């Protein structure tokens, strides 16, 4: 048990920092996912077949392929792709991408596919009258989206978004294969050097449970806040 103490003899402080890293990667990935969703949700809802096809291709491929495979693609292919783009601009040195960037980008793309589906479903389940009413009232596009559609969409999307957050949080454990020191990687290192894998992996499980528990409490409160009056 003293292996979990803070300080030089225990792994407590290392694991605490690793937990912060997991949270940081999850939040960054979730944010990158929102950016992807912002691009692909309009594509999926577009009138044009070709744009629909692009949107569907993204969500189908990412949701049908294991997360680990996507992470390997980014881990092994990431710096190659960046170097290729840099070579177009006349930069030929070796570029190494940080594990944090690769990891949050890979997880972000995965989380983005789920978020896209959630936003699409939420927008589609808004009453048609709302769209028509805001058109009749002559609102411009900005007010139409941000003041009429978005508040209603968020209320409908929040319960599912908290699921996406859970999935994203758990998926970050997979980027330990790239060497980024988050909970899983730190437990692996600690288990290797103390030969006590049972303790450290069980403790990692407890840390993940704690993270999901706290975030669920927070998200439930947010949900209640957004569904006032319903």
């Amino acid at each position, binding site marked *: 048990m003293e292996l979990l103490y803070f300080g030089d003899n225990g792994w407590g402080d290392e694991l605490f920092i690793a937990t912060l890293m997991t949270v940081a990667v999850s939040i960054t990935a979730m944010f990158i996912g929102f950016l992807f969703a912002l691009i692909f949700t309009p594509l999926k809802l577009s009138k044009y077949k070709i744009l629909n096809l692009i949107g569907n291709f993204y969500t189908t491929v990412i949701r049908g392929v294991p997360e*680990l495979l996507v992470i*390997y693609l980014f881990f092994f292919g990431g710096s190659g792709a960046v170097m290729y783009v840099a070579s177009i601009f006349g930069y030929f040195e070796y570029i190494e991408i940080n594990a944090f960037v690769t990891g949050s980008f890979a997880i972000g793309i995965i989380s983005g596919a789920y978020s896209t589906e959630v936003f699409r479903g939420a927008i589609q389940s808004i009453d048609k009258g709302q769209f028509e009413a805001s058109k009749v009232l002559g609102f411009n596009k900005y007010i139409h989206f941000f003041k009429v559609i978005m508040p209603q969409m968020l209320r409908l999307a929040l319960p599912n978004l908290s699921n996406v957050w859970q999935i994203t949080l758990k998926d970050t454990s997979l980027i330990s294969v790239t060497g980024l020191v988050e909970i899983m990687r730190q437990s*692996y290192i600690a288990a290797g050097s103390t030969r006590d894998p049972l303790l450290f*992996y069980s403790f990692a499980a407890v840390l*993940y*449970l704690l993270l999901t528990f706290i975030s669920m409490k927070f998200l439930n409160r947010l949900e209640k806040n957004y569904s006032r009056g319903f």
Partner: protein
Amino acid sequence: MDFDLMITSFPKLLNAALITLKLLSASLFFGLFVGLLFAILRLNNNPVINKFAYGYSYVFRGTPLLVQIFIIYFGLGQIEYFRSTFLWVVFKEPYWCAIIAFTLNTGAYTSEILRSAFQTIKPGFIEAGKSLGISNKIIFYKIQIPIAIKQSLPAYGNEIILMMKGTSLASTVTLLDLTGVAKYIISTTFKPIEVFIVAGSIYLFMTFVIHNLIKYLEKKFSYQ
């Protein structure tokens, strides 16, 4: 694009996909029993049994699958007493460890799916059965289970696809499943995109087949 590599790696990856399918079918088979058992325990009126089943599903759904595999594969071998029992024969094999971890994980999700299916059965069905004098056992097997299957099919289809993606984690405990072989080829040839396209297409094909199979079953079970 290295098309030669794509062609030569295809049979290797296809072979590895068989291991993925084996892992998937074994864990789904056992997971269904675990899920059914815990769903029944969840609906029990005894608060202790109830809480225990809830705790099981909460823990397995709240932690990453990777942690679960590592605890079972690396963690359990550490207990001296455990290594002297006959169970050690099973637990020293990464293949069985992976199946046990997947079974427990999918069992937790399945129990939630089945529980909500049982809870949404209209009480009228059970009351009708009781008033006809049918025994509780037959009501359960002949009325509740068929309705629950029909109710839970769409959600269970999603769970099968999630589990198929989950089997990729078997590659972290030295098993050479589809992802494991794909990673091996990538790390020896440094051609991630080509291998990703081939391996990804195989996964997508499996998703496609599972998706349509569930759709077919849904149609079959809907009584119209």
